[in-house]
């Protein structure tokens, strides 16, 4: 299944963990909130993606079916 990474911005409080765990796809803006690369998540990053999703302290990072 094709999936994309999205942040629920109402849940995100800018911990920034995701950008440390997944710098390939996530950077932080000047206020500390994640900017997620658009597009499909490459298979090769699967393990890191899952880690970033489960380690978000407020579970704001989501792996969703591609829209």
């Amino acid at each position, binding site marked *: 299944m094709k999936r994309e990474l999205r*942040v*629920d*911005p*109402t*849940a*995100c*409080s*800018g911990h920034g963990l995701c950008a440390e765990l997944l710098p390939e796809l996530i950077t932080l*803006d*000047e*206020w*500390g*909130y994640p*900017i997620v690369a658009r597009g499909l998540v490459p298979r090769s990053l699967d393990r890191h993606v899952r880690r970033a999703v489960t380690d978000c302290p407020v579970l704001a990072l989501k792996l*969703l079916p591609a829209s």
Partner: protein
Amino acid sequence: MTYGTTVPYPAPSPGPQDRARTAPAGTASEAPDLPRLLPVHGAVPVDLRTHLSRYGAPPYFGHPGKLIPVLKVAGLTGRGGAAFPVHRKLQAVGEARTRPVVIGNGAEGEPASDKDKSLLWISPHLVLDGLQLAAEAVGSEAVGLYVHRNARLQERLRAAVAERAAARADLAPVEIIDAPPRFLAGEESALASRISGQPAMPRFKPPRVFERGVVGRPTLVHNVETLAHMALIARYGPAWFRSVGTRDEPGSMLCTVHQADGRRGVVETGLGTPLRDLLQLEGTQAVLSGGYHGAWVPSADAAHMTLSNEDLKAAGGFVGAGVLVALPAGRCGIAETARVARYLALESAGQCGPCFNGLPRIAAALDEVASPRPDPRAVTDMIRWAALVEGRGACHHPDGTTRFVRSALHVFREEIRNHSAGRCVDPAREPFLPLPADTALDAADWS
């Protein structure tokens, strides 16, 4: 020529003399030309008896789904701003496995818009007919009308609902729900939160409201004007609906028109009407279309455009919910936009980091650009922040705000050069664009 009628809002207090001014009853089979939604004399609420003698009883189909192909042929799109095809929403909700909820959206949080309040005040039964027909089409028995916080309007609607219940005109009972006076209160997911007992704040999608909305049930939300069109299409058919408007954007719509001399009124007009027929453009510099999430267009360009997304989208704007403002020459478009941008920043629900952080900074930078000899970094900062907030909210508030601000930077670029030289076209800065007195201070203001 412009069609339709100018309607003042707040509507004048109904008195005994209004009864005599109520429209003479036509025959039920008479399909109105224009105006369709607002009776010609305006301002006098239409009671159920007058409504029924003019339009006849709502033509229930006796079965869910039957209205949907009719609406598809009519080509009706949502009149709340997004212009989404109405039949597709009905189809999606009608196919849900759980019984859906149907809500008429009359929150109208846009400070420059009066059309929904005017329609609800003057023609409540058209909206309520549409609500019943929509509920029948998707097989719903949970029906509500979400209405701008105005005690007289809500009281009038409760009376209309009671009138209908007594006359057994409805298939499902209708609940009137109060919408807090917030810019975003009518955003679909904010509406669903409010009706579910939470503050009227937008939430993250998915799930979309048509999948999981009010108390987790699939929810059909239509703007009240959309519902009124539905009530007439069900009676007079798609060909009648399409006899006004353009091929791609059929039908009529309500517009709240703000003239440069300060006059403000609601008119009904066909899509495709030249903007110069709706607004007096002489002595103006720019037109705002689509409200405070919309875009400025120079008057010289607006003079060649029609009220259509085809024309307005090419200029970065859109028809939206039909707010049109003509900004007089001699006013500072940057100062006007800065004032509204500050309001929009304060109306952020504050839930999403980029919007919460970015919008106040964008507003402050625009304030700087509105001041004499502004810091030249203000514009570049603003453009960077605009790019940082776009597409990063749970709703379209950041995107709409930057659309509005970006269009001002472009259309009023001459005025920005003036400010750099220490001059302004309007040093007096009397406010022109309408804004409410209060903005949200804490969570209680969203309930």
